[in-house]
């Protein structure tokens, strides 16, 4: 499943659409501690988190995750949203719990 195909599913609300629409999503990854995500986030993963600050973007960019999914209704503030745009990082939002959002990704990948 590519990032574009995840957008097409309509499951998660696109908050920012980056330029990596053709990138394959490898697996879901759940983590809210940036220190751990930095070391463990698999490249190409869909990173589901409630940690929505500007450093989340830095970690996403450096680990090459395919997209960020902000769960539990978490939203970036304006400055962070601007940074996501300038860094070209694909970000989705959902009101679902982290587990449910990650499970949806898992299920899409195993359809």
């Amino acid at each position, binding site marked *: 499943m590519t990032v574009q195909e995840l957008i097409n599913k309509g499951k998660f609300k696109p908050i920012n659409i980056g330029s990596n629409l053709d990138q394959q999503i490898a697996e879901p990854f759940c983590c809210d501690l940036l220190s751990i995500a930095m*070391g463990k986030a698999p490249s190409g993963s869909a990173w589901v988190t409630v940690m929505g600050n500007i450093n989340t973007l*830095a970690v996403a960019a450096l680990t090459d995750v395919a997209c960020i999914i902000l769960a539990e209704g978490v939203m970036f503030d304006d*400055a962070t949203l601007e940074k996501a745009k300038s860094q070209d990082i694909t970000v989705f939002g959902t009101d679902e719990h982290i587990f449910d959002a990650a499970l949806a990704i898992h299920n899409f990948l195993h359809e």
Partner: protein
Amino acid sequence: MLNDELHLSYQILGDDFTRAGEASSDVKHKLKMMGISPETVRRVAIAMYEGEINMVIHADGGTIDVIISPSEVKLILKDKGPGIADIELAMQEGYSTAPDNIRSLGFGAGMGLSNMKKYTDEMDIETELGVGTTVTMTIKI
């Protein structure tokens, strides 16, 4: 491919969390452009970012020199911070001296130095209390 060494230098500001990671992103971008393998680029980016964020949190900033040669990337992070009292303890996963406001940003899990060690081929720490810390990391290409 590179024939000579390329030197890059960055000034890191203390307590500036909005800009933390920009130096690492810049190095990552440049390495990518040079055609270095994605796995190597990722290792450099992670190790440098951990060092960069440590400088922002603990040391009121510092400098990072990056030396890229055909065989390796060397990262030299120098600060005039408080120094590390017990390196062995600081290297342990889960040990952290980060204050609560840092933890609320998602840092302070005590993974920084161990991540740096994990993702590099060599890591050397020179530190003196009250004087500062220099971390040198080498990633083979």
